[in-house]
């Protein structure tokens, strides 16, 4: 009698299967995600895979010259000194620039930590180059740092040098360009990492008797290091991808024959799409290796919360 009434009055809710799916998070709301996923698959994943596939379809000429069958493009990439050298050329530019940008941002971020009059203006100005862009910076460098430009004029007239310095159309020009566009970015990141460190940690170290150097080396730097690693990676990626500057203020056939230029040359001038994709993908691979190395080093550092508001 009790049993019978129980089973009869128990009506299941009508939303049974859809309820169980909704529990897992699968509902009609997910449809909102579809356009973005279609976009990502169609404009990113597919072309990338297509390009990857292309790298295994070398032109007959490439095969003839380098052998290796399907892998002819890769063989060419490693064996052709002209191409392979550009890896080192790009590294020679990107690594020092990235290091420089990160290292120089640290003391500057430190000094600009506290409030002072005009801080906002200063920060806005520091970030300005992001809006200038590489092409404009290149034109400006050509004029300003050229043989007739103000910089050389000033140095000559104040007697620091006799002959104008060759600051553009070479390695230096591209370096300057990368620093001008890369430094604000690195500064912003490191600034925000720094502000993410709870200031009371340093105060505590102070009360425990640590001087400036000790506080920096033993408290701040270890907490900042993972952020520095991340900033280095991001700045490095930006610098490694250098493209227009290498042509505009660099020496595209010599000192600054960077990978991006090589890829473009294959793509637009030689119309060797397979090789172009190969170079592009190898660019990504080299970057990944550097990132992996840095990440490996980073994993030995403290990655927990630094207590600040970030």
């Amino acid at each position, binding site marked *: 009698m009790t049993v019978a009434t129980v089973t009869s009055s128990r009506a299941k809710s009508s939303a049974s299967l859809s309820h169980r799916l909704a529990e897992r998070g699968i509902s009609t709301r997910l449809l909102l995600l579809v356009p973005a996923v279609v976009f990502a698959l169609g404009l990113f994943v597919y072309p990338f895979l297509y*390009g990857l596939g292309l790298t295994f379809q070398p032109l007959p000429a490439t095969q003839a010259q380098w052998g290796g069958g399907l892998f002819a493009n890769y063989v060419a990439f490693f064996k052709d000194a002209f191409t392979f050298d550009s890896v080192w050329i790009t590294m020679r530019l990107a690594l020092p620039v990235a290091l420089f940008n990160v290292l120089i941002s640290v003391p500057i971020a430190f000094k600009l930590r506290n409030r002072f009059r005009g801080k906002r203006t200063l920060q806005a100005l520091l970030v300005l180059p992001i809006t200038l862009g590489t092409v404009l910076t290149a034109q400006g460098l050509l004029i300003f740092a050229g043989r007739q430009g103000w910089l050389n004029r000033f140095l000559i007239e104040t007697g620091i040098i006799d002959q104008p310095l060759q600051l553009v159309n070479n390695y230096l020009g591209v370096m300057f360009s990368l620093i001008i566009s890369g430094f604000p970015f690195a500064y912003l990141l490191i600034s925000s990492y720094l502000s993410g460190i709870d200031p009371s940690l340093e105060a505590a170290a102070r009360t425990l008797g640590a001087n400036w150097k000790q506080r920096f080396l033993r408290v701040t730097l270890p907490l900042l290091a993972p952020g520095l690693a991340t900033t280095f990676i991001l700045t490095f990626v930006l610098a490694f991808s250098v493209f227009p500057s290498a042509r505009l203020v660099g020496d595209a056939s010599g000192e600054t024959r960077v990978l991006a230029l090589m890829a473009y040359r294959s*793509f637009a001038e030689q119309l060797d799409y397979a090789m172009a994709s190969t170079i592009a993908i190898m660019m990504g691979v080299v970057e990944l290796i550097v990132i992996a190395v840095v990440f490996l080093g980073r994993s030995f550092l403290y990655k927990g919360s630094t207590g600040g508001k970030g």
Partner: protein
Amino acid sequence: MSNATLTRPTVVTGPSKTAKPGSRLPPGEKSLVASPGTWFVWAGIAAFFIFLFGIVLSVLVDSLGRPWFNTWLPENFTTAWYQQAWTRFNLTHIMGVTLLVAFSVIIISVVIGVPASYVLARSSFPGKNIVTLLFLLPILIPPITYGIPLATVMYNFGLGRTILAVILVNLVPSVPFVIITMTPFIEQINPAIENAARMCGANTRRVFTKILAPLLIPGILAASILVLVRTVGMFDLTFLVSGPNSDTLVVAIYRAMTAAGGGESRQLISAMGVLYTALMLLILIIALRFINPTQLVAQVKEARED
């Protein structure tokens, strides 16, 4: 009552601005001009700004001067370069293309990205991590690496050198950017207010139009401005797929600089450069009038507890 002698109050000055390194300041006081480290920092900042202003000013002066080679400043000033550049490079068309591309990219990436952000912010579902990674990748990978394969595909589809191709390639970094910006923004909106709206009788459509949309708009505007700046300034991707009819301003300047035969007249290019900067500044000024960039963070005030 004792005769209180008037002692001269000692004049206490603040920390001397010319304090030597190591001199004693009251605890807690930082002198602005003291250690070599500070000098180094200020010197570095100064050098940076010298280059920055030097560059910008050089281009500006160049664009306004009669032929200028051997002297500090050009002999005469003129605005003729601007008119010449405008007609020579058909800047009306180029400006139009630039703005068309930029606004199309903004609209499409917002329409695609904001709903995706909403789902990412509010739901968890199997495979969410993969989807998030999928959206993050275009930002992590440099443009050339995915740009060349993408451009190849564009050409294969016959879209080479078209405005459509320029729009499509610029979408690839922009949609993830919108998603990455809007997702935390939406997460900050109290999810209970959607329920509250329902309990007040609002159906899904009205929850969206009356409650969600007004709250999302400040964030969308801020993200749009950033997409606008990025797209107008984007060189690598656009260059790979654009042609004479579909160049944006940045690409046009590059082509002028690298034209066969030593490039176009330097002053013409400088004039274009100044126009480009003016366009950017205009965008930023208009944007900052309407949008507070810090709105992307901490938009909705948390309820205060007393």
